[in-house]
């Protein structure tokens, strides 16, 4: 098969993704004016390209089952290191579109499936890091004092670690056996609940009926998810996390949170001197109301941009973990791990390592372009 035919077949294989993308973009253009910052993204060339790439991978992750040609774990005899476009023996019209890897698995399907691992962990881990940073960074910047000094010191401490060393120390079977990840998760996963509770409490303090209802809903949902994610003890079995995955998730959150903390602290210190904060103080609002409902919304521009950039950075981190063999599980088609497996025979068979490498790069590039577009549009505020 020629290179053009391979490319054509790959594009064809992604048909559900193209369909989804067309629908999303058509709707976005139609309702551009009433979608706020997202709608204005449609006016920025870079933003559109970024959004396109990010949505492409997001849809690929969701629809991966429809896109793959062969199960990513199937090993077919005779396909070891097969060249791109090789026909699968015995099956009519089945191809290894991007060739076979060292264990005779389909490189294309593995690349497509690999998007799932990344997109399941990276955005969620980034979101958790942001929640933690909100809950700690806002008071640190707003009140200052000893609380700020101690937290800033700890944040700088974590940031002074080379990331790789930290991962090597935190993502090991010995650490998993010691129960440290579960304990860390027990602490870290509390923060989103605290954050949500504070958000509601500060807003509806004067309306006890509403407050009680909202708080109850949040706490039930929060504690339910918490028991499942941190302790794997969800009575209904909806929320659960593999211990290995939990270990990686916790480490990634732990690495990201201090950096976000510093950003939020800096923004808070800047914004707390504004007039509208002084007005709220004079009005007699509580500090938490001022932090969460006055300062935070006004810091959203840089934070949205950083969120997008940070998902990209987390994607790179996850790839790094896989590259050093600390990934999810040896069988899984995680991009970093596939690159790591492929690099050993790079000078003879480069085709197994290149697709996941380029996939990872394109996703991060998409997120960076999206961040650029968002920054461009947010500055117009």
């Amino acid at each position: 098969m020629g290179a053009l035919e391979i490319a054509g077949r790959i594009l064809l294989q992604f048909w559900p993704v193209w369909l989804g993308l067309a629908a999303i973009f058509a709707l976005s253009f139609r309702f551009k004016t009433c979608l706020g910052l997202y709608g204005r993204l449609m006016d920025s060339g870079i933003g559109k390209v970024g959004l396109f790439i990010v949505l492409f991978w997001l849809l690929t992750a969701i629809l991966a089952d429809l896109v793959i040609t062969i199960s990513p774990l199937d090993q077919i005899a005779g396909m070891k290191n097969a060249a791109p476009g090789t026909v699968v023996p015995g099956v009519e019209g089945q191809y290894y579109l991007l060739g076979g890897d060292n264990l005779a698995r389909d490189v294309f399907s593995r690349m497509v499936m690999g998007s799932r691992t990344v997109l399941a962990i990276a955005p969620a881990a980034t979101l958790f890091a942001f929640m933690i940073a909100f809950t700690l960074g806002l008071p640190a910047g707003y009140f200052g004092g000893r609380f700020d000094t101690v937290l800033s010191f700890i944040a700088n401490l974590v940031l002074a670690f080379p990331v790789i060393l930290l991962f090597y120390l935190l993502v090991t079977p010995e650490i998993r056996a010691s129960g440290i990840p579960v304990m860390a998760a027990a602490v870290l996963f509390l923060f989103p609940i605290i954050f949500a509770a504070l958000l509601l409490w500060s807003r509806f303090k004067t309306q006890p009926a509403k407050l009680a209802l909202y708080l109850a809903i949040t706490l039930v949902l929060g504690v339910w998810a918490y028991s499942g994610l941190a302790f794997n003890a969800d009575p209904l079995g909806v929320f659960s996390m593999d211990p290995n995955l939990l270990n990686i998730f916790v480490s990634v959150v732990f690495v990201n949170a201090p950096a976000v903390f510093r950003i939020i602290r800096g923004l808070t210190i800047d914004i707390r001197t504004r007039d509208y904060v002084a007005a709220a103080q004079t009005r007699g609002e509580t500090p938490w109301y001022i932090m969460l409902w006055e300062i935070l919304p006004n810091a959203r521009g840089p934070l949205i941009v950083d969120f997008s950039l940070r998902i990209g950075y987390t994607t790179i981190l996850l790839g790094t973990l896989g590259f050093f063999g600390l990934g999810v599980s040896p069988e899984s088609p995680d991009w970093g791990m596939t690159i790591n497996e492929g690099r050993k025979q790079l000078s003879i068979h480069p085709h197994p390592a290149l697709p996941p490498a380029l996939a990872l790069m394109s996703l991060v590039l998409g997120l960076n372009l999206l961040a650029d577009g968002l920054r461009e549009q947010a500055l117009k505020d």
Partner: protein
Amino acid sequence: MGRFILKRLGVMALTALCLTFAVFVLTNLHASLEKLAKNQVNTRMTDEQVELWLSNNGYGEPLLWRYGEWLGVVPGWTGTAENGKPTGRCVQPNVPPEETPRFCGVLQGYFGFSTVFHQPVGGIIAERVALTGWLMLWVMVVMVPMALVVGVLAGMREGSRLDRGLSIFSITSTATPEYVSGVVLIAVFASTSFGLQWFKASAASAMDRMTLENFTLPVLTMALYGMGYIARMTRASMAEVMTAQYVRTAHLKGLSFGAVVLKHALRNALIAPFTVIMLQFPWLLTGVVIVEALFSYKGFGWTLVRAADNNDIELLLSCSIVAVVVVLLTQLISDIGYVFLNPRVRVS
């Protein structure tokens, strides 16, 4: 200024202390020590044998006490080997027992003994850091001028086609981590399948003699990832300077565009990137680990991976000291340099 530096050095020492303690705790979990014992003797030891080996080799003391031993504030452990010879933390093969010091730790300049390389840690670290130093040097030599040129060219006419093109180039370079660009570069320039075997895929021979053939790919791989970020900072700074009053004045008094850029804008535009370049060093440290693993260049990063893989406690501790010193020292230099470059800022 002196007090400022002293204070920063104090914070640095405190940070190093906390970090090494964290590393110490994480590497001295009981399961890790068991693994270490089995690695050192044999993998089929019984639990009693493991305990015996651990207590015979000074791992039996409480955690804090042993951290003190490593620091050199508590006397090192001593014992007797099966053949009756004295053993201990401070015992050296060719030093008579009477002259063996009681304390031997970081404060005495002794960094311990590597269980992987079977050599004193100090020597290993010095040798490996020197190798990585060469890599870093060449990365800087390639990366910084390239980044500054790209940034200045992009920023001098904001919004022009040149700016768009160069900006996309820098975004792409920041989005390409080392393990991606390294893999792509090796596939294109060092594999048989593309037919361009210009360079070598391994930098192992560069440890003895650096040549264009064996050192280009690792240097390029690292330089590409770091470059985009510096270039973007330079661009932002340059674009800001180009809108300043004095640049407009220079334009109005009839200077050519080249003269305005080179004589008036450039110097002021380079203040911000200086800070960014200094803060890039810690980032390079992570890159070094990936690149050295990928190109099998046995420098600091490679040593760190080996140490971490084998739970080599004292080697890992020294690696973290090196990392902390690099990170904090570059922060300090960037702060001080900023004050010298920018007379509007004074340290209070």
